[in-house]
């Protein structure tokens, strides 16, 4: 199978690889996929108090297309509000990277990673703004 030039470029020069400190209150983490399926993506977003994604990092276990999809997503989300980032569709990734049909699932996983990370952010934000309530529930 031949890879598109953009997939190769992201694979060879991945953007924003790495990890943020997990205990940073502004960092949200989404981990999607499973090792036995051959794909796991970890996407971390640094989100400011106004809900704008300041920075992003990823780590991916998966094929070249999965690595490229997550690398591209980190570029795509930067500067977006979380609401705008939630609007990102996997088809955008497919188009940008010219993914063949057998690699569509890589783009779906990348979209899921955004949703998982933002879900984590919302959850943690809720916990932070209602500490008293959370404590009283225990």
């Amino acid at each position: 199978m031949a890879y598109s030039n953009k997939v190769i470029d992201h694979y060879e020069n991945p953007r924003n690889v790495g990890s943020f400190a997990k205990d940073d209150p502004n960092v949200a983490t989404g981990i999607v996929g499973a090792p036995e399926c051959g794909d796991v993506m970890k996407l971390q977003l640094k989100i400011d108090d106004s809900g704008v994604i300041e920075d992003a990092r990823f780590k991916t276990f998966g094929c070249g297309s999965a690595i490229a999809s997550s690398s591209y997503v980190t570029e795509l989300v930067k500067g977006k509000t979380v609401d705008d980032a939630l609007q990102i569709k996997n088809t955008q990734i497919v188009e940008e990277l010219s993914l063949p049909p057998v690699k569509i699932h890589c783009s779906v996983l990348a979209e899921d990673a955004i949703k998982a990370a933002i879900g984590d952010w919302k959850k943690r934000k809720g916990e932070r703004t209602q500490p008293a309530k959370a404590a009283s529930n225990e």
Partner: protein
Amino acid sequence: MGRVIYMDNHATTPMDPRVLEAMLPYFTDKFGNAASRNHQFGWDAEGAVDTAREQIGRLIHAKSKEIIFTSGATESDNLAIKGVVEFYKDKGNHVITAVTEHKAVLDTCKALERTGKAQVTYLQVDKEGLVDPDDVRKAITDKTILISLMYANNEIGTIHPVAEVGKLAKEKGVLFHSDATQGVGKLPLDVEAMGIDLMSLTAHKLYGPKGCGALYVRSKGPRVRLTPMMDGGGHERGMRSGTLNVPGIVGFGKACELSGAEMETEAGRMLQMRERLHRGLFEQLDEVYLNGHPTQRLPGNLNVSFAFVEGESLLMGLKDVAVSSGSACTSATLEPSYVLKALGVGDDLAHTSIRFGLGRFNTMEDVEDVIERVVREVRRLRDMSPLYEMAKEGIDLKSYQWARE
């Protein structure tokens, strides 16, 4: 990036220039049909085919007339299994094989089950890929007509106890077929000593041309009969009609002759390279696992799982090294290797497996280069792998709650 290194010799091998040289006259000057009995062109072709039959027979200790030419090992497997099942249908309908066989055997068996022509027992293997001869013995019933067990596995290189199974088959009066595609020319094979009644071979795995294979069919003790799959001119003792691929057969014969003559030194050299590759990778990388048997394997085969690094992405990184992977992403079915699965290798590790297949044209320099490139690329991809990070943090990946869709 450096020069391209081919290390996928279980998939196919480059043709030896000496083989090509032997073949060339049979495309042009000596183009005759081996079945033309009444002129020089036909006689030349027939003579060349006879020589090849002898060369092939000598390599496996068979008589030349016991060699039936086919288009390749897939056809040989089909002919052996379907031909026996059809011919001996009054005697029984039970076939015994193993779960790690090549698809040419497994899918042939499945086709026979589907059409109700055979009942098939698929034997399990141990974690190193070996079939237990005792399991074969237990599986034999009074309906069993054929055992089909490969000599050496194409993915993990595990060498089955073929001689023991052959002996067992003789005792029980069951025919024994072995797909020896990967082993022929690499290791000594003796159809007499091993009790093999039918054996599949192909030229392109031993530095011969593609599209040319053979089926060994025992002529005596017992004389094996087959129902042909192709009807026509009755070539090859009626077992396989069709004009013979004379240049291919000449090349096949030459390839067998060369492999036989050089087997001992080549097997030793291959083993040295394999051991170096094994050591080089295992010394420099953690979390690497050998798939298959530590010693009872093809000398040129090394199959390794590089935990936390997906196989296809590793292949992509090794773009100037030709190897193959058991990862789902590299297979047509999107399932990881069924062979590794049969060994009990989890899907997570199967996705990270790479098969290295050393061959005649590899050198120690290739091995050193491949070690360096693989180590570099595995490290790069592990730096990018969330699983490696998690494992290093002490997270148990097996019990972790993955967010599956």
